[in-house]
């Protein structure tokens, strides 16, 4: 007897839960002439709700020990590894060749491990003790920027997404991500991985929908501290730069492609979402040699 296949409902991921979009809208992206599924067409209110979730999760996430954040990133990689076949299938559905899809999943897992390793190390290499001409102990340390909105790359539905999220959360930030519009399947399945891998709700929020519609809202929201734009549409880049001035958001423009390259394995991707805090601590000369501290 033939069996009726059960299809998955792809929902969005906000505050550790999987709601449908509050707007009730959906769209049907296609690949190779086939509809991929009914995907939530998120509204600006979903974005607002996701930002509220990201904001309330941020302090707690940044306060976790670096070692613990590292463990959690490693855990995401572990769970992703266990679901590798599902991701490969989805990538093939979205138009990748099998070999290409397998490579993308492997690289995504490795990239998470890479940034898991950096969680308790970037602080050391980006901190400094600064020489000053007064009796102060002067030092600088990086602190997370806060809530980061990410317009994820359009072409690379999994690897591109992971390559943006991993360095962001490794540095103690939380994020709201708009997934690839035409290749959204992996983003929601990745959200399922996140929800079963010790990532506190709200640290990563993933929306699906129309990029053009949501870009201005991503740019304008006063409670978003930084924005990563992946792509090279000059009109969108201009919109973002203009919208971001109201609260002086940090705007980072990254290319839409090339995610297989080593360029996306660098601690500088973490430091680009850090603010430097410098402390002047008064000291007296205490050492016999006159050392300041």
């Amino acid at each position, binding site marked *: 007897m033939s069996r009726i296949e059960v299809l998955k409902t792809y929902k969005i991921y906000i505050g550790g839960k999987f709601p449908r979009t509050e707007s009730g809208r959906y769209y049907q992206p296609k690949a190779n002439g086939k509809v991929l599924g009914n995907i939530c067409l998120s509204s*600006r209110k979903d974005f607002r709700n996701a930002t509220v979730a990201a904001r309330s999760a941020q302090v707690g996430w940044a306060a976790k020990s670096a070692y613990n954040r590292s463990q959690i990133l490693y855990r995401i990689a572990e769970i992703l590894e266990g679901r590798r076949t599902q991701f490969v299938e989805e990538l093939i559905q979205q138009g990748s060749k099998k070999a290409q899809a397998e490579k993308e999943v492997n690289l995504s897992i490795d990239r998470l491990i890479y940034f898991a390793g950096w969680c308790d190390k970037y602080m050391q290499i980006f901190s400094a003790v600064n020489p000053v001409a007064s009796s102060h102990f002067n030092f600088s340390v990086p602190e997370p920027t806060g809530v980061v909105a990410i317009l994820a790359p359009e072409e690379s539905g999994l690897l591109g997404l992971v390559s943006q999220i991993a360095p962001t959360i490794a540095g103690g930030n939380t994020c709201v991500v708009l997934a690839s519009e035409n290749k959204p399947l992996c983003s929601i399945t990745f959200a399922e991985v996140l929800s079963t891998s010790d990532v506190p709700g709200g640290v990563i929020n993933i929306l699906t929908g129309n990029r053009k519609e949501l870009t201005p809202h991503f740019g*304008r929201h*006063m*409670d978003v501290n930084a924005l990563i734009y992946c792509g090279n549409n000059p009109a969108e880049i201009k919109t973002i730069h203009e919208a971001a001035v*109201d*609260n002086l958001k940090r705007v980072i423009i990254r290319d839409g492609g090339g995610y297989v390259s080593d360029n996306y394995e660098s601690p500088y991707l973490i430091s680009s979402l850090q603010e430097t805090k410098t402390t002047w601590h008064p000291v007296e000369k205490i050492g016999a040699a006159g050392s300041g501290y």
Partner: protein
Amino acid sequence: MAEKDYRLSPRVDQVGIQDRVDRITKRSVKSEAKRKGLLMTLNMIDLTTLEGADTDFKVKQMCYKAQHLHDSFPDLPTTAAVCVYPNFVKTAINEVKGSKVKVASVATAFPSGHSSSEIKLLDTKIAVDNGAHEVDMVISRGKFHSGEYNFVFDEIAAIKEACGNARLKVILETGELGTFDKVRRASDIAMDAGADFIKTSTGKISPAATLPVTLVMLEAIKDYYYETGKMIGMKPAGGISNSKLALQYLLMVKETLGGKWLSNEWFRFGASSLANDVLMQIMKQESGNYQSKDYFSKD
């Protein structure tokens, strides 16, 4: 007044109440109506600080905020009142002098209400002597649960007398009453005993104010009005921290009691963080940008 048997207070249809609340929460309020509702909400807030860690300076800061909700925005109303412990009434009165902001004081061994009648009366007297315009008392829930309704009635009546010209709000602490029937019963007792306002909660226990429990109390106020012609005010307090919820309360008041009750003479919100959320919504309507707490005063 002839003694009344409060066991005969009307029973509440729980399913019906829930159903009406569901319909109200599905309503959407937009643009101009929303703007007016938000401004009205600000003007109905009793800005509250009731912490063990309160200091004179914290009370002063709150009084300033009550009068200057967001100075960069022109023509904002003040809040209706500030609500403090009795020992801060003097400070608050000094700070709000010359403005429309009133000073409310909790009294009668707030929040538990467990103390002797003498202490409760003295507590009230201190608040009133220091100039409080309004007194928020708590009922003795223990006595209420033991069925000593006359005791509860007499206590409210005695406090009302001690209040003199100050308006009396009676806190039922609905979270400790248990059922809607008991909320209704307590509302009837409070109104008969002379309450000017009935108020849901102290804000110290959860659940505090909810839409259904407020609706039960509004219905009690309506019946009392039909019976006696006397208007009683309503104050939900605790847990109301966002604008959408506040607007739903206003809808419920308007639909149950009518437009007459839509002023801060007859309806209040007991809240501390609600004001900032409403301000953020108003700014969102003005500028089109979703707002951040970073740009508003701390509570």
